[in-house]
């Protein structure tokens, strides 16, 4: 049985929130972590992609770029001028 979308969103959000400031997550890292947690029930091209898309569209996560693209909690960026 496929793992539930809300469950994946909650898991991804928690992974990022609990490690904020210590680890930067790329989409691939989130997929790998979910594959470990949910095993074969997790489909990165289906529910995995949808979870990231919804978390970003809901404003819970933002994409950031520091050499590569990451997913992070929304925050004010260091370089910004007022």
């Amino acid at each position, binding site marked *: 049985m496929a793992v539930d979308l809300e469950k994946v969103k909650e898991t991804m959000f928690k992974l990022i929130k609990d490690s904020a400031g210590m680890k930067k997550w*790329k989409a691939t890292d989130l997929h790998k972590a979910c594959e470990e947690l949910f095993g074969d029930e997790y489909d990165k091209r289906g529910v995995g*992609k949808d979870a*990231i898309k919804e978390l970003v*569209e809901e404003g819970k996560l933002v994409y950031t*770029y520091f050499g*590569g*693209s990451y997913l992070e909690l929304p925050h004010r*960026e260091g*370089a910004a001028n007022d």
Partner: protein
Amino acid sequence: MPVEKKYETPLLDQLESGGWPSFVKEIKSAAEDNAMANDLLGLLEQSYQEKIGHWKHGGIVGVMGYGGGVIGRYTDLPEKYPAISHFHTMRINQPAGWFYTSEALRTLCDIWDAHGSGLTNMHGSTGDIIFLGTRTEELEPIFSKLTAAGFDLGGSGSDVRTPSCCCGKARCEWACYDTMGLTYYITNRYQDELHRPAFPYKMKFKMSGCPNDCVASVARADISIIGTWRDEIQVNQEEVRNYAKSGLDITKEIAMLCPGKCIEWNGNEIQIDNSNCRHCMHCINLMPKALAPGKDRGAAILVGSKAPIVEGALLSSVLVPFIKLEEPYDDLEIWELIENMWDIWCEEGKNRERIGEFIQRVGLGNFLDAVGLEPQPEMVAFPRDNPYVFYEEYFEEEEDQ
């Protein structure tokens, strides 16, 4: 609204001399009624005097839901140049083949005059329409107006970059497949990958209609799709004779420069040994009225080129020597291959490692094995010399012995 000139720019002024159009002239022209362009002149002059850039990179700005298309820029001298304290770049997905109506161009420029510096870069090295310099709070209004006019943002960061192509069948007789049709299809098929970065690093598609490769896909794209043919070069001997009559030295300028050494000219007709043709286009380019690519046309798929950024430059390697590229594109087998490559690269690739660098690290033989492709002679750049491809049965035989 007219803007008062604020800065003297003696160093920049020198760049206006000479016959070639100058970017300084364009910035000055924009600065007459745009405060951002005006402050940009001051900042640039200061940079030229000090030989120091005054920009900071922003990593968060963007439009809601997208992870690409906006590159954050701030000056590190915001008090001195307040109009460019934010100066973000926007990449707009260009139409395939860079075809516009003049009305579409006016629409783009009106949007940009209203919300940005008025300075554009048509087109950036990525192929996109580049809008140079706007503020964070202007990004969403610009995006709304762009989408209302039928445009969308392009790629940036670790995503599928805006696919680009040569003008192909729209203007060129050498096109071996419909580059613009395929580019439009790829742009639509990979919308999610284009707007939501999910790879170790950037992933560029470039489509050229023939081996002349006018978009330099063999040097610039992670996936290069280059038109080619698999039958015989079409020859019109009468036109060949006309070229010879008009002074073309066919032996010296064509036969002797043919990399396959497969052309003979007897003063009346040319013979081409098509089995040794390298499909380089040299003879066709020199005698376009006499020669043409064959009739059985399609494309080769290559993988792995890149310009030097983190590591040095790479050229693409052949992955699929020939494939028919005809509609319906949904039915083509290459999508499964491409998506398998992405899976392996995402699984095993290092951060900021382009797929070509990844293939170099793991070895082309191992990569082919992982994506389920058999090695083929066309993948070998230098036969008997190439360390990438080996045949397991040799090792098995050796072990048996």
